[in-house]
């Protein structure tokens, strides 16, 4: 079966890959492009572990067909840190101990970045509802929410 050639932009760099029409963006990211930071938890869009940003929109990569990335921009967890500097969200996750096993962390980091971009001063409730698509089984979410609110506060100070 002929494969589809896809040209796209991933984490700011041009990328191209060949894929079958039914392959998901998650499969291509992980298995063909070596970007295994995007995690697979369910393949049904329920857990958020594979959260990526596609043309500015937060999506689960398991529900995006790989050919849909054609001509678009994809951001994964590997593109969050700038050079050797962690983002405020990443730094606050570390400081607050907002991870235990860490499998959900990349998805939460990607989603939290998006939350703060859309809403620089989220309330706790807004953060909880925005992040309700990301499952964490270890933390009870307490430290995750604190880390996200703290990161938002730091980012507001940084841009003020």
């Amino acid at each position, binding site marked *: 079966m002929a494969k589809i050639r896809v040209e796209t932009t991933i984490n700011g760099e041009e990328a191209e890959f060949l894929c079958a029409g039914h392959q998901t963006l998650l499969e291509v990211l992980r298995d063909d492009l070596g970007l295994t930071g995007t995690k697979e938890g369910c393949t049904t869009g329920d857990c958020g572990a594979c959260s990526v940003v596609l043309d500015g929109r937060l999506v689960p990569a398991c529900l995006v067909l790989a050919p849909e990335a054609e001509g678009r921009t994809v951001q994964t967890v590997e593109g969050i840190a700038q050079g050797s500097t962690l983002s405020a969200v990443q730094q606050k996750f570390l400081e607050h101990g907002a991870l235990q096993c860490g499998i959900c962390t990349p998805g939460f980091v990607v989603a939290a970045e998006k939350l703060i971009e859309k809403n620089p001063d989220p309330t706790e409730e807004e953060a909880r509802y925005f992040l*309700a698509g990301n499952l964490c089984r270890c933390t009870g979410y307490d430290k995750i929410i604190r880390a996200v609110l703290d990161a938002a506060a730091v980012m507001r100070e940084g841009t003020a």
Partner: protein
Amino acid sequence: MSAAADTTRGQGERKFKQIGSRPIRHDGLDKVTGRARFGADYTLPGMIHGVFVRSPYAHARILSIDTSAAEKVPGVRAVITAEDFPDIAMNWIPTGPTGIDFGANQRTVLAREKALYHGHAFAAVAATSDEIAREAGKLIKVEWEVLEPVLSIEAALAPGAPILHEGQETQGAGDKPEGDSNITNQVLFEGGNLDAGFSEADVIVEGHFETPMVHQGYIEPHACLANCREDGTSEIWASTQGHFNVKSEVALITGMDPNSIKVTPTEIGGGFGGKIPVYLEPAAIVLSRKSGRPVKMTMTRDEVFRATGPTSGSRMWARIGAKADGTFVACETRLEFEAGAFRGSPVGAACMTVFTPYEIPNFKILGIDIVLNKPRVAAYRAPGAPIAAFAAEQLIDELAGKLDRDPIDLRLQNAIEEGGRAKYGPRFEAIGFKQTLQAAKNHPHYKAKIGANQGRGVAAGFWFNAGMQSSATVSVNDDGSAVVRTGNPDIGGSRASMALMAAEELGIDVTRVRPLVGDTDSVGYCDVTGGSRVTYATGMAVIEATRQVVDHLRARAATMWDIELDSVEWQDGNAVATNGDADKGSLSIEEIARQMRMTGGPVVASASVNPPAAGPAFGVHLCDLEVDPETGVTRILRYTVVQDAGKAIHPTYVEGQFQGGAAQGIGWALNEEYLWDAEGKVENSGFLDYRMPVASDLPMIDTQIVEVANPLHPYGVRGVGETPIVPPLATVANAMHAATGVRFRTLPMSPPRVLDAIESQSS
């Protein structure tokens, strides 16, 4: 980083510099950037993909399997069934409160005589793609003799019920059925005089309780990569709670020489007990041996739900009696637990925990292990204890109501303390139950006002915690930094705890200690990451090894000064000359390390421990919730966990354990359950329909760490991981009663059930 000073009560006035601080965990950076490699992230050149083929029946005899059509599919490299493994008979070997059966473990990987639950694997296919393997699996022809499935405790115990394991007679204590039975074992603890005890009681409360099977719900599906090499040696990379366990299980199940197997633990994306059993690894290594290719196996979420991990569903009856002054006088239980397809529910631990937090002189605790055609249960965080506490702690709440007593005061009056005897035999050493109850009573949460349709619940619980075997190796680098190597997969921040303990002993900053989790060839044996044992037992090995390193460093300083070893003390990372040699001053660890090659070579020390006991941890939970009388929806408004940690090594991760256990327990209480169709197929094998708590379901979870030193650990540490899931089921149920006036004795307390209960109460 701030150096937190602290003291351990009961351990003298030791001032800690590193212990009790909150450093950033060493493995955190790789986990927030996506670099950390979990089970599915490993690849090898030439790797192919293995998948299981699973039974479409919950109970069926396998008459024959024909794999020939699947083997001919282009891209297929190997197909295996139970025939590719040595035939190991089922045989239960007791190991303390539970046991092990390698025949059952093998049949959990691949069914042999029978498929015992819907989704039970009976073959595995390895092919150049996952897709080819799955398609080829559909071509495997099986001749089935479909049998009636046993899908409930009631059906399993019914006269004439289909028997899962022919020839299986009930073992253990108490009145037992004659002949073959689905009851595999009975546990009985008796003490005092039950009838006399209940006749002394002024108030007796009793109830029937039911809880459904629930899953651990780790976010990472099971995954491994296996490579059997030309010389018969093997490497396995596995997401597991214990790679030494994987090694020994793979060897036993496949008949391979254990010496030929090396297992490397990947980062593990949650386990909660469910990643102690091996499911994939024996199949992956045999597929690799047969195909000559590295084989990767990963489960889908659907497979995780159907064929791994759940903890038991239960049917329970319990009663407790008290005098008018609140003194508990007698209790009795009959706990029936679903084991799934093979013997081994946690009913023994349930019996050992139910009512154990209280002095009750007259008791009869009976527990029954029942097999039925559902997935084989695995350990789940304090296995059995939350289920038992759901019954016991509701009855105590009811008793408090009938006696018009504050529920914490009633517990304080009857709480077990040091010297008290557990109903299963031994006496407790120093425990912090009363202190924890008192802290909960004094907590602002307990005094806060609550509104209409709202209720507050309180419940308690404990877990024994485990000791078991651990080892550690500590080495000093030539710049005075150190490496600490252990063999326990880090499931929730244990690397940081190991580094903190080594740093404390060395007297250096925790950032100067690099913690590693080694493979089975590079570190001494460690039992699994489970039983809340790693910070306690592996931590003890780390402390012991580091103390040996300190002795070596003192000796090196003595050599450098040419003085007696006895004249060298170790203070804050420095060798300090004392006695008549005080004029020598001091040498820092950096100075000593720089001279290692001149003073005897590298400084390395190892230690191993095998503590038979651990030191139980008690917890008390408070919950405020609101029930919407129109919809039956329950909202958790406020939740507080108070628990004895003995000594919190890294308080952030202690709090995290408290919060995570509470959240899992809240999910179990309110929403989580397996749903089955009439044929025994799981109907909700995905996260959309198996509804675990999400961020918007929960409030912040407040925590209070109580520290009553564990006399068995040099710093007073108690394991903290499991206790937090013990009280929540009853805590939420007690709060529901306070809010609605209804006693919920069946889980989950989902909106339809709550609505029904409220409506039937008002009608």
